[in-house]
């Protein structure tokens, strides 16, 4: 088992590209080795050690590596990008693209995560205890698929375009979601605890469940009557009819 503790060594204003903060990159490395890992702030090349204090206990494979980050990381992007295993616990806020393209392992953010959290995620688990920004579990510009697998849970609210172009996996939002969640859903599952607007536009597959109210229903769904899901009664809709979609939208009665 390896535990790595990172704390910011200074206030960071310009965003840092930190895809190298991941169990895959830290496993079996000493504090000194981790400090020397490259990282970029704006156009300036720097190292993990220049920006963060680093403590390491033990050593281990990526599966056995846990990274604990304490402090404000709201200008640190792409933490855990593409990670395959291990855990990251961020006690604070994080910047964009946390857990982007992640394949396995688990990331927990105790604060808020900025936009594109879990972008193009394939597997593993991402938990955001605060709020999420735009494009949670979405794709990259122009790409046909966003999230393909894994699970994202947001305890607070998420902004617009949740799960855009989702092709698989599961997103659970306890609070509200912004406009157009599940747009172009091609097979993922989205559960929204609170309210949202215009869900499910252009969905062809997958499921969206809204437990709060829907402001502005898209005029592209066929009502299918009431249906129970896990003992709760919902109005069921299928669509998007324009695309002969087989997507299912449940809205709490």
């Amino acid at each position, binding site marked *: 088992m390896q535990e790595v503790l990172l704390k910011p060594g200074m206030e960071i*204003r*310009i*965003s840092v*590209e930190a895809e190298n903060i991941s169990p895959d990159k830290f496993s079996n490395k000493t504090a000194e080795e981790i400090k020397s890992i490259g990282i*970029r*702030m*704006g*156009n*300036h090349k720097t190292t993990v050690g220049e920006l963060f204090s680093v403590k390491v206990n033990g050593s281990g494979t990526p599966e056995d590596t846990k990274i604990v980050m304490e402090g404000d990381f709201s*200008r640190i992007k792409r933490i855990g990008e593409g990670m395959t295993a291990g855990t990251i616990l961020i006690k604070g806020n994080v910047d*964009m693209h946390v857990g982007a393209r992640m394949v396995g392992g688990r990331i927990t953010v105790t604060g808020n995560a900025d*936009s*594109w959290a879990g972008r193009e995620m394939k597997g593993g688990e991402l938990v955001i205890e605060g709020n999420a920004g*735009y*494009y949670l579990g979405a794709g*990259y*510009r*122009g790409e046909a698929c966003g999230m393909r697998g894994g699970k994202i849970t947001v305890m607070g609210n998420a902004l617009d*375009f949740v799960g855009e172009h989702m092709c698989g996996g599961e997103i659970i939002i306890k609070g509200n979601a912004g*406009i*157009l969640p599940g*747009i*172009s859903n091609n097979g993922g599952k989205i559960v929204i605890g609170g309210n949202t607007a*215009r869900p499910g*536009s*252009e969905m062809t597959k997958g499921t969206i469940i809204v437990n709060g109210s829907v402001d*502005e229903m*898209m*005029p*592209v*769904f*066929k009502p299918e009557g009431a249906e129970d899901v896990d003992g709760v009664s919902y109005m069921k809709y299928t*669509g998007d*009819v*324009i695309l002969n979609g087989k997507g299912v939208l449940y809205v709490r009665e």
Partner: protein
Amino acid sequence: MTVITDALCPFCGCLCDDISVVVEDNKIVDVKNACKIGASKIRGHHRIKSPMIRDDKNSDFKEVSYDEAIDKAAQILAGSKRALLYGWASALCEAHKKGILLAEELGAVIDNTATVCHAPSALAIHEKGVPTATLGQIKNRADVVIFWGCNPVHSHPRHMGRYSVFPRGFFSGKGRRGRKIIVVDVRKTNTAGIADEYVEIQQGSDYLIISALRAILSGHEDVVPESVGGVARKDLLRIAAILKEAKFGTLFFGMGLTQSKSRYKNIDNAISLVTELNSFNKFIMMPMRGHYNVTGFGQVCTWETGFATAVDFSSGAPYYNPGETAANDLLYRKEVDAAMIIAGDAGAHFPANSVRELAKIPVVQVDPYWNPTTEVANVVIPSAISGVELEGTAYRMDGVSLRMRKMIEPEHLADEEILDRLIARVREIRGE
């Protein structure tokens, strides 16, 4: 006295190329064929006379030489970690190329004025593509023309006369009488005044209405409720029927569509609508681009970097992600540590927060005109007016590239030369 004919107007995206200017003693004394705004633009106003610098933004500018101003600008930019090079809409493509090179050299972010108007259209094109045509196709063929969230009477005065509403063409010999004009907007604009069909919609409901039309056209009118976004179902059915029967339909759209609720997803949806209309007949669409060469920057940036705008060179390779890398994203996050505003007025068109942020960081302005950006600048480098004092390339709103003519001799440096000298100086400072 000389007369320059077939000149191009450097104002709006119509890029009218039939302008005549009369020049006497290197002064433009008459402008023919242009509309009022075009003519006044060609005649010029509020020029910046000399390069100027100041350290403290509350103090007055000091007039300096070009060398001194360029040196000062280079010092600011070369020392930055996150520089923003913004503007470009009133510059020629030749300058755009140099601007991209400068951004590369600096590891900066380059973005253009589309970010506050039609960049959302690009985001939609990434999703769905871009069914379009040159303006002459519309002139020769269109029998149904929609203006959605735009008001050409105001913003593009000769558009309707030259391309879209009134002209007679090969298959459109009846001109205006052979065309059905539909205006969709939230208020009755001047353009709506000349329309055959005016569809007033609730603010922000564009997306819903487009989807409703798509549902009707795909044979699912049963799912469309009695009223969508303030438009009655029967009206939607009528409009859908008109669209379906068009031999050649065109959807022109403006910032009413790109900047309202759902933003670029409105365009995304509209592209699908237009694409699906091609199952019946021909239908194309086009953004009503504002500045005369805002289109050109997008073209140049795309072939140089692979991306249309908002390109971040901080890693040495282009990275593009509007929402993250566009000018206002960075200013909102207070990341920018130096800015160059060139051929575009951030001071006038940016949200107040962004302008406040610009006021806090070193700013270089390159522009022929004194404008609100000047108020937040530390270094001001006056430039020649592209398309009046300089010849070079611009792209019309339909992506046709044209060569702007020179009408009079410049007294100031060209953007291209300013950028060349900046690049050289930055390289020196960085010891390359």
